[in-house]
């Protein structure tokens, strides 16, 4: 118990004239022992739940709503211990199975994707590209010896795990793959000096750009890396020296890159803070950022996400606090919600959420769907807007 936990939960701020209207999809972390939370939630702007999908596995790490109205969800099939690969908690975020679940909760498609971790994305042709810690990607010793940075001697049982990008078709066949160690430059793509040498480069987001190439968040390199889809070559390195242990790197319509700059291991000695940054890939300059005031009020050492809305606002998820909020280009908070579901994650009480996605009411996947919160009336009585006092007066002094 603490102020943070006793603090306001549920919907805290909503300015309907300035916020981008839509439905919010999120999948709170939970662990198999805790059985109450096996759901992905769709919530309206008022904090009312309008739909939920029961999911058979904990998130690994998120789900998206497809234009056909189904949920595409990465599930955590086996725990790190069950995988038996000697992984430590740095490999948190492992998935292992992709599920497509229809509106009524039926599993209509599934594919086992061993060692999948963090992110996946649907390509234009319907294929799915995902990140994996595949043993195939383990960095060969002669390259590993040349990888610069990291804390000496912290390899995982003497090995550096390199990430693998994998594309599968809907029959589950691998049609394309990319091994990080084959294309990164050990002299240039150096590891954060404080990180373990267990992984290189630690991918945590994948995004298909409009030119068909792939934008990757290479976390331990403190850099966004763009690769050529055809040749696999690295064709862009962004944000070096500006961003630290970032997540959720996306290409915007204007060609800029939006990302969640966690600020972990930032080269500063100031109270730590996260920020959301828009980078111009041409100049590598920060053209927009959101920071809290004071900056340390917004910080997630791990995970985090950001999504630009059509009206120019940005929806941000501060994972470690289970807090999602929307800011205008001017940095004004126009919507704020703190996840009231405390479940169990890594053996501790947690309301953490990896990502939130917002879908406007005219999104094809929501067409003709029953979005009446009355359907989940009892859920909304417990977790909805009326369950949480909004106007809390400070006490004493």
């Amino acid at each position, binding site marked *: 118990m603490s102020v943070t936990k006793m603090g*306001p939960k549920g919907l805290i701020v909503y300015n309907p004239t300035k916020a981008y209207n839509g439905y919010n999809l999120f999948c709170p972390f939970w662990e198999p022992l805790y059985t109450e939370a096996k759901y992905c939630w769709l919530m309206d702007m008022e904090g009312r739940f309008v739909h939920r999908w029961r999911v058979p596995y904990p998130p690994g790490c998120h789900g998206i709503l497809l234009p056909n109205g189904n949920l595409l969800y990465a599930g955590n099939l086996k725990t790190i211990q069950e995988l038996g690969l000697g992984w430590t908690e740095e490999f948190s975020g492992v998935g292992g199975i992709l599920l497509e679940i229809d509106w009524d909760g039926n599993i209509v498609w599934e594919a086992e994707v061993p060692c999948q971790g963090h992110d996946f994305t649907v390509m234009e042709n319907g294929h799915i590209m995902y990140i994996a810690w595949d043993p195939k990607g383990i960095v060969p010793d002669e390259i590993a010896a040349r990888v610069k940075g990291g804390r000496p001697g912290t390899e995982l049982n003497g090995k550096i795990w390199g990430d693998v990008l994998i594309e599968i078709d809907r029959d589950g066949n691998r049609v394309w793959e990319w091994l990080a160690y084959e294309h990164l430059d050990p002299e240039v793509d150096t590891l954060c000096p404080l990180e373990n040498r267990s992984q290189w480069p630690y991918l945590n987001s994948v995004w298909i750009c409009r030119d068909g190439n792939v934008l990757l968040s290479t976390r331990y390199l403190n850099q966004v890396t763009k690769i050529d889809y055809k040749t696999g070559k690295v064709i862009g390195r962004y944000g070096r020296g500006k961003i630290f242990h970032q997540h959720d790197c996306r290409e915007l319509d204007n060609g800029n890159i939006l990302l969640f700059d966690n600020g972990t291991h930032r080269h500063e000695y100031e109270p730590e803070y996260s920020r959301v940054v828009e980078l111009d890939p041409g100049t590598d300059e920060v053209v927009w950022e959101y920071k809290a005031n004071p900056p340390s009020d917004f910080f997630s050492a791990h995970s985090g996400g950001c999504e630009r809305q059509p009206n120019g606002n940005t929806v941000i998820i501060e994972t470690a606090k289970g807090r999602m909020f929307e800011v205008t280009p001017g940095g004004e908070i126009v919507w704020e919600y703190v996840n009231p579901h405390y479940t169990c994650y890594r053996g501790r009480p947690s309301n953490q959420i990896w990502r939130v996605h917002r879908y406007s009411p005219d999104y094809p996947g929501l067409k003709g769907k029953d979005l009446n919160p009355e359907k989940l009336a009892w859920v909304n009585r417990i977790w909805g807007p009326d369950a949480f006092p909004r106007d809390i007066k400070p006490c*004493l002094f």
Partner: protein
Amino acid sequence: MSYARTSLKGVMFYDSVKAYNGVTLFTPMEGRDVWLIDMMGRLVNHWRTPYQPGCDAKLLPNGNLLYAGKITSGPLAGLEGAGGILLELDWDGNVVWECKDPYLHHTFDRMQNGNTLVLKWVKLPDNIAGRVKGGDSGTEIDGVMWGEAIQEIAIDGKLVWEWVAHEHLDPDVTPRCPVCPRSTWIHANAVSELPDGNILVSFAKSDVIAIIDKRTGDIKWQWGPGKLAHQHCPTVLDNGNILVFDNGMHPGGFAWGFSTVIEVNPKNNEIVWEYGGGGEECLDFYSSTLGSCQRLPNGNTLICEGTTGRIFEITPALELVWEFANNLPLYEPPPGQTRSHMVCSAYRYGMDYSGLKRTVSIPTERQSAPGTLSETEEKAVRARLGALGY
């Protein structure tokens, strides 16, 4: 600003049976004030000082306040922990002693003999600075990396004793954070006199707490690398153990973002008690910088989570028995600074503390601060509090 973070203020929780009864002194980063409150959050005393905090204040056994202030025009004013002045104020806010030196920083300790231990930045000679590894080059201040000195200052301002870090520590083997700026070398942030006369000190950028032999200047004991990360406020306990606030900033390896308060036995370097870190409060307790911890006479521990402005007390069994969130939105932030509820440090004084004997009457109702605010200021403060619904 986050509404979720800023809407709960004041004393949030108080278990009057289990908490250690007393008054709590705390120094917000914003403003120029030190506040003394009782267990219910009622104002007992308030000191307005001419300087921003830089960044510690303690109530002395004689009832005076010893305050580390910051000279904003100082040569190193931009550094974390910058100071420049020590002030001793009596209960009514009159300055009874001061010590000025633009290179003073962080904190101090009033010794048993009446002298004062201070931390001071001294230029690191180029040949030594060149051997220090870690940090991005170019982050020095005008090409200078600042090293550390500990000084003992007599009441008349005379230097009685000095320990210069680079005369005793080898820059080739002294650990240093690889990502912290090269503006300072090891960045001392705490100093105190032990009962045996030796000196307990914390070097934040080395992740080291150490005991310095007062006579020889040698390091008698040191601990921390791989265990601590940019810690603050080590204090020695009656049982000889050392309590320290391990911030958990820039830890080696994967960072989840949490702090830990640790009690370590310096005889065998074993951790005998801890709060946070591996415990179930994990990510709910984090202050990347600042922070303090204090073991109370009944065995409880008072913790100041600096960056969130949260002060709380826990029992040895980690049960929360008192919790306070800094709620002093009294001042507009100085130009160029952001609004902040951060708190540098917090200390609890029992009702039998000698420094409280002469003057204190604990208020039974809400009561305005005595004397130290002018009538106009008082009105402004009241109006502001009123507007905020206090």
